[in-house]
């Protein structure tokens, strides 16, 4: 059993507890309980917490899911959606400039809907495929955005324009973490919309296109049968 901890000791114990946020709730409960009743130093306790968190992460990366979610989807989707966000927000700006043109309204709205739907779908797949490695997917998505923002500040690409896909994407991640699977009808609709978005843009080779089409196919393949 541990002796009475001074104020300094208790402060350092808080470091262990803060580090334990890296662990899943059950692991955190058990690990902090074990540390509370052993006489190891705070540094060793911290090492125990970090080593378990690191090993859990390593275990996750042995499977295909984190790779598919981060390198296979978040990275190419962010590149694709950045371009689409700029185009969609440009269309909306054009429509606001000449609100009487019905064709411009339709064009702006359809682009906006496609970007929103595609971003939500990609976010949903990222959230449902690999919930434990969302940090890596966020990194894979955020790095190209920050890079492009730093390359072309104020030239067609602003943070506000990126929000056109980032907000629905984040909502999709949140939904994917909760739901895991969609109904068949919605999944098939999103897959079709995703394919349409790709066909309209018509850019990139087969590798790029397959990385953009698989989320829709995955959602359809794993959809809940007999539900909407």
């Amino acid at each position, binding site marked *: 059993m541990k002796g009475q901890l001074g104020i300094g000791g208790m402060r350092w114990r808080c470091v262990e507890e803060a580090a334990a946020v890296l662990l899943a709730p059950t692991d955190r409960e058990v690990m902090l*309980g074990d540390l509370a*009743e*052993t006489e190891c130093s705070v540094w060793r306790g911290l090492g125990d*917490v970090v*080593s378990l968190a690191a090993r859990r992460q390593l275990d996750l990366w042995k499977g295909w899911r984190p790779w598919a979610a981060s390198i296979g989807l978040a990275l190419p989707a962010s590149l694709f959606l950045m371009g689409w966000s700029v185009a969609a927000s440009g269309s909306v700006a054009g429509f606001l400039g000449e609100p009487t043109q019905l064709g411009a309204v339709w064009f702006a709205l359809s682009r906006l809907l496609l970007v929103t739907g595609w971003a939500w779908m990609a976010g949903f797949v990222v959230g449902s495929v690999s919930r434990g490695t969302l940090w890596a997917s966020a990194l894979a998505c955020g790095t190209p955005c920050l890079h492009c923002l730093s390359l072309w500040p104020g030239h067609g690409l602003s943070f506000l324009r990126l929000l056109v896909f980032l907000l629905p994407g984040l909502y999709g991640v949140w939904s994917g973490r909760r739901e895991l699977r969609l109904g068949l009808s919605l999944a098939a609709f999103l897959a079709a919309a995703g394919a349409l978005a790709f066909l309209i843009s018509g850019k990139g080779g087969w590798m790029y296109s397959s990385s953009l089409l698989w989320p829709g196919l995955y959602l359809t393949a794993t959809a809940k049968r007999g539900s909407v």
Partner: protein
Amino acid sequence: MVGEFEYLILSAAAHLGEDAYGAAMREVIETTGGRKCSLGALYITLDRLEAKGLVETWLSAPTQQRGGRAKRMVKVTGEGAREARKFYETVIRISRGTAWGDGRGNRLPEDAA
């Protein structure tokens, strides 16, 4: 067959019986086994053993001693006991005829000195 660390965990759990859980098993491994053991390695190995059906684990009721937190209790299954015995017998068999086994093989440099 189980590995060396898996064997240590199975033995520690069997030794502790109904009181086998993370912190207690680490203490047994460190004091009896004479080696450092991180809780991270212990829990990851427990997961592996559980996946192989060699141990069963469950959460106990929270105790005051641990700041109101639960323990992950461990029980060696029949299959786990058989695997541990297999490892033990293999080590005994392969050690026969060595200087550190029954002493009939090559002598250790320390013995010669």
